[in-house]
Every structure is written in structure tokens, then in C-alpha cells.
């Protein structure tokens, strides 16, 4: 499904040259999601210890 969405994006006339940028944005979003979960877990740990 994600691949289909990606193909839809980069096949548009105004986004034909934005493939790399989109991939970078997705990578950043992935890292942000990972860090969000990571920080939340460690914050809960700190609260449980205090």
C-alpha cells in the first residue's frame, strides 16, 4: 500500500523529480516515530522509578 502511494506521488507531473526528497522525508518520519517510542518508554521507566 505504501509502495502504491509512493508511486502515485512520484508519478505526478509536478512530483516527478521529487523521488529522493520523498524518500528522505519518509526516512525522517520513520526515525521520528522510532525516537518517539524510544523516548516514551524511557520516560515511563523514569516515572516508575521515582
Amino acid at each position, binding site marked *: 500500500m505504501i509502495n502504491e502511494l509512493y508511486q502515485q506521488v512520484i508519478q505526478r507531473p509536478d512530483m516527478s523529480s521529487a523521488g529522493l526528497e520523498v524518500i528522505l522525508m519518509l526516512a525522517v518520519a*520513520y526515525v521520528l*516515530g*522510532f525516537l518517539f517510542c524510544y523516548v516514551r*518508554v524511557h520516560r515511563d521507566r523514569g516515572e*516508575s522509578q521515582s
Partner: protein
Amino acid sequence: MTPMHPLAGTFGSASLTIILLLLAAFLAGMLSCQLLRLLGICCRPRRAVNTETVYMSVEPEITEGGPETGPETAPRMYTRSIYSETPASRPRTKSAPPSGPRIELRKPAPLVEAESSAGRSSFESRVQEMTGGNTPVAPNFRTELEIRDDGQEDDLTRLEGIGPNTSRLLNEAGIRNYARLATMSRDELRHILETGGPQFRVQDPKSWPYQAELAARNNWDRLREYQEFLLSGKTR
């Protein structure tokens, strides 16, 4: 100079799709974090070391009599009494020390409560008060004391700490037998002693009700052990 496309620099009509892709990537990052955490590879919070002491849960055995009865099987609880046994009041003998964990049936009644109970003479009401009304009185125990509490006079001087003068003072206060004395609280006895004169104020009636209870139940062996314990505690 080439004219710029009107949608250059923007995502144009693909904005919604881009947002969906970013959201999916964000959720994918969270999901991977959760998976790695569940697998124990990373993101696993270190659990605090549980320093709380864990005691083995044992089911106490309620037995009749004191530490001299029955085989030595730990743990055990002694006979329920209207006066709770404390480690200080428990008889300690070299021949048969109580084994197993020390278990108290309940906390001793606060001394303040005894003030409000002045005037109550019924043994049953006294027991109900000290047990909070939840513990029924053993029928045989109650009947035995009721039979003994028929106005007869007992020799109170057989109890440790009660001499002839103190016995006379207690008799004047209406305490003429063991069953009656067993129903008295420490504060009530202390009040009687204080009203008797300065020579009685130095006495400590803390153990008298329990001694009287044992005497009223004709448990003389246990009473002797308890009195030996009291005397050994005084001479230390």
C-alpha cells in the same frame, strides 16, 4: 530564464498522499521500536531490582493450648484470648520454646478505648469490643467463664503481682474472682489502684487480666509458666 511551474516548490495535489506516507512512516518507526523492545534487542526499560523481602506465605495452624501441646510443627497459633499475646507476654521456657514464625492474632486494643469501656462488666461485650464484633466467642470458653463468674471469691493472691492488700483493694472494687478480673482492662485496673492510694500506684496490672483468664480456665500449668516468665523478666 525558464518560467517556473506554478506548483514548483510545493507538493501540489499530492499533499494528502504525502501526509499519509509520512504518517505511515512514523507509525512504522514506532512499530519497529515496539517490536525491537519486545524482542529485547533495544528500547527495553531496565527493571528496578525488587529489594522487597519476600516472606514465605504459610497457613497457620490454630491449636488449643500453648507451646507444650502437640508435635512441633511450625507455624502455629495459640488459643485465642481476649488479651492478645505479645512477644513480651509469651512464656518462654528452655524446654519447649515456641517454634515457627511469631504470629499475633491481632493488635492489642488501644488504651484509649478502655476508658470508654469503663462500667462494662459483661464478658461477652468485652470480647466483642476487643475483637471488633467480628470474631465470635468460643461457646465452651464463654460458658466456662460464665459458670465461674457466679459471685464466688477466688484467691487473687495466687496471681503474680497481687498481694493481700491489693487483693483486698480489688475485692472492695467488686473484683472477687478470676473471671471478673479477666474482664477488666489495664486502664480500669490502673484506675482502681490509683484510687486505692499511693502505695498501689507503683504496681503494674498489665499481666493481671491474662493471669486471671488462665486461672479462670483452670489452666494452672500455663499460668505457672507465665508467672515464671514474669519473674524471670523482673530479675533480669
